[in-house]
């Protein structure tokens, strides 16, 4: 148990390097979830409410994309952002922006697929009432997303869980640069391979604690909201 004790000491001692790592992890993953929500929620709702040829195929692909391997996404983003790649001129490879882009790609299908399912279920329930009130397509999406907001929180949490836990994409596009692109997961991978288990364990504990705390906050918000909105 000596590893645990030193990990705890590190956390409690308020080591600034540690806090920079935790902070960057949160910034990257929460930004990615926010970007993915902005793209994924309208996209999922749109698929839920429209009928077009090949819709089933789109849904299958979307569901499959939920399981995109992070290293493959990392590789793709790396190729796109590398100096000779199509987006190389931005010069953002090995920066937090590149990490946010990679995680946004990982999280968007999760949010879009779960939104599609949630909104479609609610649509079946609301369809007649909204038709009777002559609600147009745009207002329909707004109404359904708003009324599904507490269920959609689950989609955001699932997305956050994926982003916070993954290491494969951000280690490739971020480079795990100390003090700049090092996050909890990339640091754990590095420290473990170096044999510095106390730091790795400490970071692991912090990571799990953060995920639990964010889920608890979201749960509380959902319960409170549902009590007032039904």
């Amino acid at each position, binding site marked *: 148990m000596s590893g645990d004790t030193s990990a705890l000491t590190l956390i409690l001692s308020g080591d600034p390097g540690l806090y920079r790592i935790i902070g960057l992890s949160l910034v990257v993953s929460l930004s990615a979830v926010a970007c993915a929500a902005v793209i994924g929620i309208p996209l999922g709702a749109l698929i839920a409410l429209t009928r077009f040829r090949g819709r089933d195929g789109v849904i299958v692909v979307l569901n499959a994309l939920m399981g995109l391997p992070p290293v493959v996404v990392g590789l793709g983003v790396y190729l796109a952002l590398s100096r000779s790649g199509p987006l190389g001129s931005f010069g953002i490879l090995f920066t937090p922006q590149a990490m946010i882009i990679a995680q946004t790609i990982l999280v968007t299908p999760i949010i879009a697929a779960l939104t599609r399912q949630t909104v479609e279920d609610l649509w079946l*329930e*609301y369809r*007649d*009432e909204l*038709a*009777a*009130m*002559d*609600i147009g397509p745009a*207002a329909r999406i707004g*109404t359904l997303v708003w*009324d599904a907001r507490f269920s959609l929180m689950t989609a955001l949490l699932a997305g956050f869980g994926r982003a916070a836990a993954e290491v494969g994409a951000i280690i490739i596009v971020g480079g795990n640069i100390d003090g700049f692109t090092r996050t909890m997961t990339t640091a754990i991978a590095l420290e473990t391979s170096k044999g510095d288990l106390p730091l790795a364990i400490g970071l692991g504990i912090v990571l799990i604690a953060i995920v639990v705390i964010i889920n608890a906050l979201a749960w509380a918000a959902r319960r409170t909201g*549902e*009590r*007032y*909105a*039904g």
Partner: protein
Amino acid sequence: MRAPDTDLPIVLSGITVKAGAVTILDGVTQTIAAGAPTVLIGPNGAGKTTLLRVVMGLAKPDAGSIVWGNRDDAAKVRRAIVFQRPVMLRRSAAANIAYALGAAGVPRAQHETCIAELLSLVGLDALATRPARKLSGGEQQRLALARALARDPSVLLLDETTASLDPAATKAIEDIIRAVAGRGVKVVMSTHDLGQARRLGGDVVLMHRGRVIEHGPAAQFFAQPKTEQARAFIAGELLV
């Protein structure tokens, strides 16, 4: 008050609705004019719900035509419907009404007054802030009525609105229907409760197997039914 346009009379000619090989409505010709409530009766599966959906403009007939107050576009200008199992939006009772007011184009500045009026009309003033989905069955039906009335309809369609309610809740709804009809709103309602048809009906339409079997003023329909099926139905015999 908005434009004095009306959806009346509603003229249905030869309305046929099919689902696959099944004919749900079979050449229904019927005029719905201003006046006391029109009550649709008939056994389960007779086509009452489908007819109400056609009248609302929610179901497109496979044959026949329908005209609302000389217009044949289905724009739901001054029509409203309460479904047999109304779906409450996941919002408060007041917000459900506000939503309908917004959908009907009522300016936001008038919402507060309208909501208060409608809630008091259906006796739900005390429950304005309650989540609509946590209301009892009878309260939800009353809220659904208020939400429909938020459209300021000239025609109000009600599908078995009291079907699953106890006598007290049923009476509350019937009182509201009477008040609404008294204000000049044309009520078209289906019911399987013959007592209710007698209590509220101005005219009665008996449906069976997608057809209109008999139509007439309520008093006459119940006292001197013209068809054998109407006589049997009133006597409580099973129409098969």
